[in-house]
């Protein structure tokens, strides 16, 4: 069985965005970059499938500059992926969801994968589109926001989170699954495994190597802006908590009109 994991390097969730005024770009120079937390569930799920037995080969696939290699090595190869393909091409700087999906689909078409796993979204762009777009481009079924995955013979059963419950979805393989928190607990790489991961195959390719014109964006960025400023906090003070609570309830009801 061949499994592909689509991975993205993103700024750590503790990152602060320094954007005092609207600007066409975000200053990302001080960002600490990590594997997208949702992609970590995809990596872990692939490794668990491999550990369950049988012939399984896991390929991590990503798009990004040279600096993504360290993340791929540490958070994909050192925890159990067998090899990696990295698309590094300056033409893909600022690529939108559709362009990224086209490139990933081109990489995936070079091999025949039985299962493609990725995070339900990346925590920087937050769009949650790429996995589903890739599946559509490849003509594969997908199940999104999956919290439990069971593989059968040529098929899968997945639990997908919906409002107030879950859908249990059956799909034929090959298929693409986008992973949600709760699917598993991603392991941390050990130091010896990080050392060994350096010996695993890591192929770097460009769009030209894939026989692909860099795809045009369908969406143009006009401007980034900081969130709207918020007013001062009004502290409700009283001798007793009950009195403070009463005053707060009154303010929310009469002044803010939200209850």
């Amino acid at each position: 069985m061949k499994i592909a994991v689509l991975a993205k390097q993103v700024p750590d969730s503790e990152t602060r965005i320094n954007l005092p005024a609207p600007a066409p770009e975000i200053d990302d120079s001080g960002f600490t970059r990590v594997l997208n937390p949702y992609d970590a569930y995809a990596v872990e799920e692939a490794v668990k499938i491999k550990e369950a037995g049988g012939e399984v080969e896991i390929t991590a696939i990503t798009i990004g500059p040279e600096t993504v290699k360290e993340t791929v090595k540490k958070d994909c190869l050192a925890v159990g992926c067998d090899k990696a393909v990295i698309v590094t091409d300056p033409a893909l700087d600022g690529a939108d969801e559709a362009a990224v999906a086209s490139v990933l689909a081109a990489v995936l078409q070079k091999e025949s994968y039985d299962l493609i796993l990725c995070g339900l979204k990346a925590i920087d762009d937050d769009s949650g589109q790429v996995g589903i777009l890739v599946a559509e481009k490849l003509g594969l079924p997908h199940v999104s926001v999956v919290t439990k995955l069971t593989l059968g013979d040529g098929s899968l059963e997945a639990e997908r989170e919906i409002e107030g419950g879950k859908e249990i979805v059956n799909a034929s393989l090959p298929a693409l699954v986008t992973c949600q928190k709760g699917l598993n607990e991603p392991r941390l790489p050990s130091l010896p495994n990080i050392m060994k991961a350096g010996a695993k195959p890591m192929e770097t390719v460009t769009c030209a190597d894939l026989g692909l014109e860099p795809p045009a964006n369908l969406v143009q960025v006009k401007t980034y802006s900081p969130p709207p400023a918020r007013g001062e906090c009004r502290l409700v003070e009283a001798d007793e908590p009950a009195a403070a609570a009463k005053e707060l309830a009154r303010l929310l009801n009469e002044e803010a009109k939200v209850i």
Partner: protein
Amino acid sequence: MPNIAVFIEQRDGAVKKVAWQMLSEARRLADAGGGEVWAIHLAPAAGDVAAKAGAHGADKVFNAMDDAFTTYNSELWGTALANFCREKSPDVLLVGSTALGKDVAPKVAGKLGCACISDAVGLTHDGDWTVRRPVYAGKCFVELTPTGGPFVVGVRPNAFVIEEKAGAGAVEDFAASLDGVEPKATVARVEAGDGGKVELTEAEVVVSGGRGIKGPENYELIEKLAETLGAAAGASRAVVDAGWVDYSHQVGQTGKTVGPNLYIACGISGAIQHLAGMSSSKCIVAINKDANAPIFKIADYGIVGDLFDVVPALTDEVGKLKG
């Protein structure tokens, strides 16, 4: 002259509120720009949706009635909406950012080869379209312009205000043309979970608990206040990672992003990744023992105090107000 199509999502006959919010906003845009508002409704039976859609601003309501639209299926819904866009050529198709909407919007865009913008909170049209959405879970916002049309926009619940007017839309049948579509993934069954009665991302009021609740047994304080308010119960990453509360309650950059009218943070200090997930809430209340907690910096109202005293007292007071 923008013509705006709005997808009316229903599950078991109940229409998602975000559909009425999108229709209301589409009406405002169409009135300003001189276009029409179309509702596209996929369901096994028409019900009273057309009348309601008309009252929320739809000029035309397209009913695609088919037994296939009983249980959600990405391929069938995606094909039907893509066929609708091909045939009617709206400028834009609005789809609510619900579990179903987030799944089907990219599917439709993929089939059409068109732009898709997720989780929009603002739309303007001045010849070109501009779509505003949060990125980095709301640490900043971006304004985007799609190239060409039709394009698909996912709309965040509660981003737009519902407006009802007297009026009725013209009703037309729409043939979804699903013959020959054979989905390779199907929903076998739907199970109710323990995620609470009110869905976090759609709730108008959210009450969240953080590490200050001290243990899983105290989360019921949060749930009681939430229940009294008719609110959804949320949680910080710390309490989810500690295993006190199911992850489906998590608010933050690696959980759910919410923008309710009222967000009450109880015993939450306000880590940057949590603030990112809720800072677009219209009114924020912080209840925390530590007067220096960062949550007070973005709160509109605050009580510096012990949540074990304040939250039950607030529950009582809200109960009195609600009668």
